[in-house]
């Protein structure tokens, strides 16, 4: 591990839902304040602030970092915003790590926020603003359509039955029933997912995560500060490895069946943590669980393969057979994921990083993985389908 040792010491999460009363800034304040309170510190103890939010189009204010600064606790402090689309929520704690590991800051407050409900006529109108404005935008793409192209390619390449992919919606929406921030925890059957409305073949309604508003914050600090504040190690998750990677920005030029950029980001993180053997069997023992990005059910599987946690084309059957259930040997998305908790873009991936912290510190309540957990991974995906961001953390008492 390079640089100073950095620990996450608290998180704060709002409920994910249509937040008709609060502005984006007010949502950011609620989660930021919660994270500070949970760490037992105040804004006066913070020496750096990081804001993560996805396209400005969603909150409808450009330079959103400036708009969100006071709500995120950045008044009179060095403040920055990282932005890699959907990958932002995991990238923000990575920024927290390097700002502390570098010695630049000792105590950072990180907030990821998104408010998607105010945009009209729908969130997809906001996504339209991120496409190439010469060719693609004039053909009217939206994310459901282009992900349908990717999903079909993935299924075709490996001969994946749709039932195997649908099982991820059943698992994640079921897990979300135990998450207090969740907007769409549901007990479903594979048949219900299969029979839900077709949006863009092969994507059905229950294959997709719901649009939501929400915010998630974290406090991260150096080992010295953790000692100085007397924060017990069982409330700490150490950053073990980080990685991020960007593939070609021409999304049509990649073979969509496999996310190479996730592989590269993951291997960077594993190597940083000193884990040089990247075989799936070894990695599934080294990591106790994973929170891969699941805006669509097939993406969880796609990402598990990119993360080297399953061989190419092997994740769907494993999920279908229950290998990734919360009470199994290798739980995947114990939080309920974007599919169940909701998808306020940057905050959604922030929720995944928060779940790694909560599981490692035994604070996940009804979602707590029954076996001992020592090390977990959060991963997100973003920009225009070509960014992978990976964060590995380990428990406070793990050497």
């Amino acid at each position, binding site marked *: 591990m390079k640089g100073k040792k950095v620990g996450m010491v608290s998180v704060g999460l709002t409920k994910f839902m249509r937040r008709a009363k609060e*502005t984006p800034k*007010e949502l950011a304040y609620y989660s930021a304040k919660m994270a500070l309170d949970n760490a037992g510190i105040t804004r006066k103890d913070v020496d750096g602030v990081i804001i993560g939010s996805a396209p400005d189009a969603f909150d*409808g204010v450009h330079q959103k970092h400036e708009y969100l600064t*006071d709500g995120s606790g950045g008044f009179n402090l060095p403040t920055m915003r990282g932005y890699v689309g959907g990958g932002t929520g995991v990238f923000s704690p990575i920024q927290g790590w390097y700002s502390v590991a570098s010695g630049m800051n000792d105590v950072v407050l990180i907030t990821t926020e998104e408010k998607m409900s*105010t945009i009209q006529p729908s969130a997809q109108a906001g996504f339209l603003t991120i496409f190439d404005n010469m060719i693609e935008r004039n053909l009217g793409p939206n994310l459901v359509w282009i992900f349908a192209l990717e999903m079909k390619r993935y299924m075709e390449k490996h001969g994946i039955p749709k039932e195997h992919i649908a099982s991820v919606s059943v698992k994640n929406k079921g897990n979300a029933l135990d998450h207090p921030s969740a907007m769409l925890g549901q007990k479903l059957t594979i048949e219900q997912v299969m029979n839900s409305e077709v949006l863009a073949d092969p994507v059905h309604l229950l294959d997709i995560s719901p649009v939501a508003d929400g915010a998630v914050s974290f406090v991260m600090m150096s080992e010295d500060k953790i000692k100085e504040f007397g924060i017990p190690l069982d409330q700490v998750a150490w950053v073990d490895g980080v990685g991020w990677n960007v593939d070609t920005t021409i999304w049509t030029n990649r073979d969509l069946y496999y996310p190479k950029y996730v592989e590269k980001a993951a291997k960077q993180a594993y190597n940083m943590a000193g884990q040089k053997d990247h075989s799936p069997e070894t990695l599934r023992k080294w990591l106790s669980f994973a929170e891969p990005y699941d805006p669509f059910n097939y993406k969880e599987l796609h990402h598990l393969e990119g993360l080297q946690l399953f061989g190419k084309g092997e994740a769907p059957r494993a999920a279908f057979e229950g290998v990734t259930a919360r009470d199994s040997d290798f739980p995947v998305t114990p939080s309920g994921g974007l599919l169940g908790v909701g998808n306020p873009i940057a905050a959604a991936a922030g929720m995944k990083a928060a779940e790694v912290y909560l599981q490692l510190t035994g604070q996940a309540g009804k979602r707590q993985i029954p076996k001992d957990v020592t090390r977990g991974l959060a991963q997100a995906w973003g920009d225009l389908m070509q960014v992978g961001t990976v964060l590995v953390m380990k428990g406070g008492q793990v050497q």
Partner: protein
Amino acid sequence: MLPTKRNAKHNSVREVEGSFPIHFHYTAGISTEKFFLGLKEKKILGNTCATCNFTYLPPKIFCEDCFAELGNDTYKEVPQTGILESYTEIYYDFRGDKLETPYFLALIKVDETDTMFYHKLIDTENPKIGMKVSAIWNDDRKGSIHDLNGFKGI
């Protein structure tokens, strides 16, 4: 998309017409909703952080300095008078078109508040920084910033 005049004239593909076709139903927010409801009733509402002894106008749900939550009991009606702290006379609009009638924008320190309030300065012949100003109300109030026509020198 309609071609621009220039494209039509030169039969050129140098420019491609486009837009971001998005609209918003912005959430007013907890504090601004209260502020707008106040304006509708001809009241200017601010709120005070007791710890910092600092009054925000417009009100906020948190103190940006000490980060305390500012709850319902922190709101109060503030006076409708203040001091002109700065102003400018506007001659061109944001499109670059010359205005037929220039007008004044101002920063006003409303009495009993600690922040600067941005609005129009109206019906004031010889504006002077430091002069006292008073709020002028719109008769047709709907709960928006336009419920105030502006401030006038007194």
